[in-house]
């Protein structure tokens, strides 16, 4: 598993909670490697669009299409890896 910045992981968990208005959740409740869609957090395509917008606004990172989105939104860790890759 690739190493990613733990501060970034925390920020992304907070982004998920804020963008998706998951008022009852805290970052600790989101597992870094758990699937975001289907099982795990149970997100759907409407949530995906919120996260696309959130990543653009908060991190200046663009998800160009559904294929990239599928890879990026596998877990918080894959999101963090993508953000780090795009920032390099």
């Amino acid at each position, binding site marked *: 598993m690739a190493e990613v910045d733990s501060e970034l992981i925390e920020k992304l968990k907070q982004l998920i909670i804020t963008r998706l208005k998951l008022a009852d959740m805290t970052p600790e409740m989101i597992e870094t490697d758990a699937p975001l869609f289907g099982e795990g957090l149970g997100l*759907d*395509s409407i949530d995906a*669009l919120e996260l696309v917008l959130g990543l653009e606004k908060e991190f200046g990172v663009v998800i160009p*299409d*559904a294929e990239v*989105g599928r890879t990026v939104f596998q877990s918080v860790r894959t999101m963090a890896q993508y953000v780090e890759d795009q920032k390099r």
Partner: protein
Amino acid sequence: MGRTAFCFPGQLQERPTLKEDHPLRRDPHFKECVEMASRQASFDLLRFSFKGEEAGFNLKLQIATYLLSMVHFSRLRAEGWVPDIITEHSMGIYAALAASEAITFEEGLWITESIGRILEREGASSGGAMASIVGLPSGEVEKISQDLNGFHLSIANYNGSKHFVLSGEEEGIEKAIDLALSKKAISATRLTFNMGLHSPRLSVLSGEIRALLKKIEIRSPKFPILNHWTVRPLRREEIKDFLSQEIGQPVYWDRCVEKLIQEGINQFIEVGHGATLTKLIRWIDRDVEAFSAGDRFSPLCHSELVSESKR
């Protein structure tokens, strides 16, 4: 003082999960609704939630959606919630009408089942499909349906600035999904429907549905129900026309929510098992409160949550 809209969702897209420890199963309204559906429609909601019976899947999903909306409505009312207005999406109209007492619970169940059977027959004979397109603006989605001229595609749901549902012939829907993905949609997927609901081609069924509804006497809604075509409350005498025409007309959910916010509604409660409408409302306006009764069990009893809407 907050003003509250109850929002009745359209057909669930997957079997509802009602595991043994699901809090709903301890609810007396749930037991009552399950028993009534079993008696009247020979429909076993619990069995459907577990077993892989695929025959008549969409019809069963429609009945399950209706029942679960009515269960959640009963829960909300028992806890003191009162809607200032009711709004609905697609087939959510049947539960919306029953909730507003324009029809009885039994009549709503009968209408859901009867129209569901007509749609099931239509799907089997004429085919059709639907797809959800997320992440493209309306102009792009309209262009997709125009570019695939010949497959009778049309926008069936206007759910938000970048959320649409397309309806039409199955081959056209598959091509539309590919086109949408090539235009960088964030998601383009088939829905479970085996017919092109809310498309002009289904208008041929309006007469049959109108004839069916002759058996029902509609009363004035106790709570106003917003008509998403006119964005005015449905009048009693309009309801049968609305029911018979809506399967051939698009759903303007975005327009509906925007109108309600303009009118001062600041709290939207989805009266159903999922949270699709809640998420669509979040996209339309992040500042209004929206939640699904199906996602909240114990918090619904919290006095601070209830206080704003209790009368």
